[in-house]
């Protein structure tokens, strides 16, 4: 794996390898000394063109726990307003000898261009590009779902189920996941639809028709305009709420729904809707949440909410992604044969 740009086209084997490696990484994170020597001497650049708190900190933490040198490069606004092109930034990073570039950009395709335009030869990890993809978010979502619904790990509530993840090697076959909210503008939705389907889960997107893209018919999922009907009749195992951006409802004649109240009534997740779900079901949100809009406080803070745990799992998943991108090659840059074997060997030294 040279880059991680999209979940569309990611093989099932690679997806499971990423999840299994994430589990290995997560297991090391309960130790007193959380730091691993794996990426010592490697340089990871966090190139963030968009505001982000949790994703940037998550990647920074992941890289540091693997002993990589981390350079944070924040550039507010687009490359054009900044005055330096993405290309020139890429050439600069290349000159500085970056081994991996974690990029977030408001332009869909920015990560793809960094990886393929010939500007630099580092591994590129997409941390969110416009409305396109955010693959590590989908991986951490899949990881969280697998831990709970396949590995039977409890929600951290005292007295709940076991704490050891037994899901290694497993996929998500037979699980039903509802993704609810602003699908149109969501890279989280796009990433999850493809990854969850690859892992064998069934996905239903739930949104008002204005927030479903024209052309959605080729996506490997169902689409529903009715949340209550989906929850009652389809009985999802996990419900993933998407953030609704404030600007989507204040566009005058271009707003996507009539009012926040109407959106909440029809698509907001609350304790009443939670009660309709099977007992084992979990509630997810990629954050940051608009409490009271797409999710009520009661639902967000409910024992079956795994929202905080998603954040924690994000570090493990990003450690796994960085590790698989960078440790797949040795110090001379030649690719080792057999990713599976390599990772097993490396794991033994963790």
């Amino acid at each position: 794996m040279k880059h991680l740009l999209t979940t569309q086209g990611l093989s099932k084997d690679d997806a499971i390898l990423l999840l299994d490696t994430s589990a290995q990484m997560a297991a090391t994170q309960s130790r007193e000394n959380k730091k691993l020597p794996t990426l010592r001497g490697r340089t990871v650049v966090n190139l963030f063109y968009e505001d982000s708190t949790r994703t940037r900190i998550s990647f920074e933490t992941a890289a540091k726990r693997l002993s990589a040198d981390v350079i944070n490069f924040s550039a507010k606004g687009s490359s054009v307003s900044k005055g330096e092109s993405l290309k020139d930034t890429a050439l600069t990073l290349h000159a500085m000898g970056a081994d991996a570039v974690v990029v977030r950009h408001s332009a869909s395709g920015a990560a793809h261009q960094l990886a393929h335009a010939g500007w630099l030869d580092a591994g590129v990890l997409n941390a969110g590009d416009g409305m396109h993809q955010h693959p590590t978010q989908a991986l951490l979502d899949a990881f969280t779902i697998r831990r709970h619904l396949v590995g039977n790990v409890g929600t951290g509530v005292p007295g709940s189920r076991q704490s050891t993840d037994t899901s290694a090697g497993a996929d998500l076959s037979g699980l039903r996941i509802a993704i609810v909210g602003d699908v149109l503008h969501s890279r989280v939705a796009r990433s999850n639809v493809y990854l969850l389907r690859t892992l064998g889960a069934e996905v239903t997107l739930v949104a008002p028709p204005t927030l479903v893209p024209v052309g959605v018919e080729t996506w490997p999922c169902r689409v529903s305009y009715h949340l209550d009907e989906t929850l009652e009749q389809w009985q999802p195992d996990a419900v993933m709420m998407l953030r609704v951006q404030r600007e989507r409802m204040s566009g005058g004649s271009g707003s996507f729904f009539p009012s926040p109240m109407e959106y909440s009534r029809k698509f907001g997740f609350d304790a009443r809707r939670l009660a309709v779900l099977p007992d084992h079901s979990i509630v997810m949100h990629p954050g940051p949440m608009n409490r009271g809009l797409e999710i009520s406080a009661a639902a967000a803070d409910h024992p079956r909410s795994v929202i905080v745990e998603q954040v924690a799992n994000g570090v493990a998943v990003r450690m796994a992604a960085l590790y698989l991108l960078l440790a797949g090659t040795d110090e001379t840059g030649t690719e080792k044969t057999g990713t599976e074997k390599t990772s097993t060997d490396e794991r033994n030294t963790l």
Partner: protein
Amino acid sequence: MSAPSTTTYVLRGVLPYGTDAVDVVLADGVIAAIGAPGTVEVPESAREVRAEGHVLLPGLVDLHTHLREPGREDAETVFSGTRAAAAGGFTAVHAMANTTPTQDTAGVVEQVYRLGQEAGWVDVHPVGAVTVGLGGEKLAELGAMADSAARVRVFSDDGKCVHDPVLMRRALEYVKAFDGVVAQHAQEPRLTEGAQMNEGVVSAQIGLTGWPAVAEESIIARDVLLAEHVGSRLHVCHLSTAGSVEIIRWAKGRGIDVTAEVTPHHLVLTDDLARDYDPVFKVNPPLRTAKDVEAVRAGLADGTIDIVATDHAPHPVEDKDCEWSSAAFGMTGLETALSVVQQTMVDTGRMTWADVARVLSENPARIGRITGSQGRPVAVGEPANLTLVDPAATRAIEGRTQVTASDNTPFAGMELPGRVVATFLRGRATVLDGTVVDGTAIDAKSLEGATR
């Protein structure tokens, strides 16, 4: 207008409109003789062009060219753009109005017109802006541009749509006084805010804001009805969707005086090309689906679409070597247009070379009201504005080796059929042996005396 050539040429064994082989003599700026091979009288001084099997067409006329001067000389100049036009087999181009300053006054259109004359590669006919500064709010002085030395007959806010229905109505009515035409860039602005590519399956997957077909079709539908109501002539620029073809077909069936154009790129490229986010494929209107490509080909073949026009839109490297959403819209087309038409329409058996002459020369000349000099028959006594193409040749397209000053061709790396072997502007070779003929531009003195 450039002075007639002093060189006499004899073109041996050429196929006018792709039909039977003849020899053609060009002298004193006109076609002096046409006859079966070996039968025509050839002056001793004539330069012989061996052209057996090459197709002879009336010089190509582009109704939609962006020459970028004044204002964006880093992308193209009138000189470089018209030199590229000659290389592509054109003898006349209509230079779009979105320059800086805008071609919205007699002064600016005359400047572009004169730059074209000085360059001497093709006849340059400036297009006048419909509204002041392409602002869409106030009519530009259309009459002054029509009466100027540039004799503007085509008016367009191309790049912007004349979306205000009242303003569009007034423009359609006003230009009737001088037999002008409004060439509409059909794009409903509210439906295309932030639009980056065709709205459909591909945009949904790759996360780029969609430019829906309905934004084009709704404006075309409105405009043909307006044109019918006020009895005016309407030209629809670069239509790109199956629905647009249907509307034009319906309008023509109703007797509405509308003409339509399609670009070479919309005849062959689709929105799938956006998947790698290479902005060379970013264009407005956007590349559509395979179904739309088939519909515009069918529309061109059956005459619903009247012309192919290049929408040649040169951009400097920095405007394309960036994120998709920051990149400029547009692609070059002057040097590949004829090849794309050959590939998609002639080599597929859907059109003859006579049809090519119709859509790339005769019809655009008629719409632009320049039939006195361009789009004329290949016949004795006619002005020697001619294009000679070797249809059997193939060539690899490369941005850097094109004549235009910009590299942004979407056909880079592809092999296209057909090669322009020679272009003649009033008997003077602007291209010979497949190469532009530099250093033949006429001097200022002959310019002064030249008349239209």
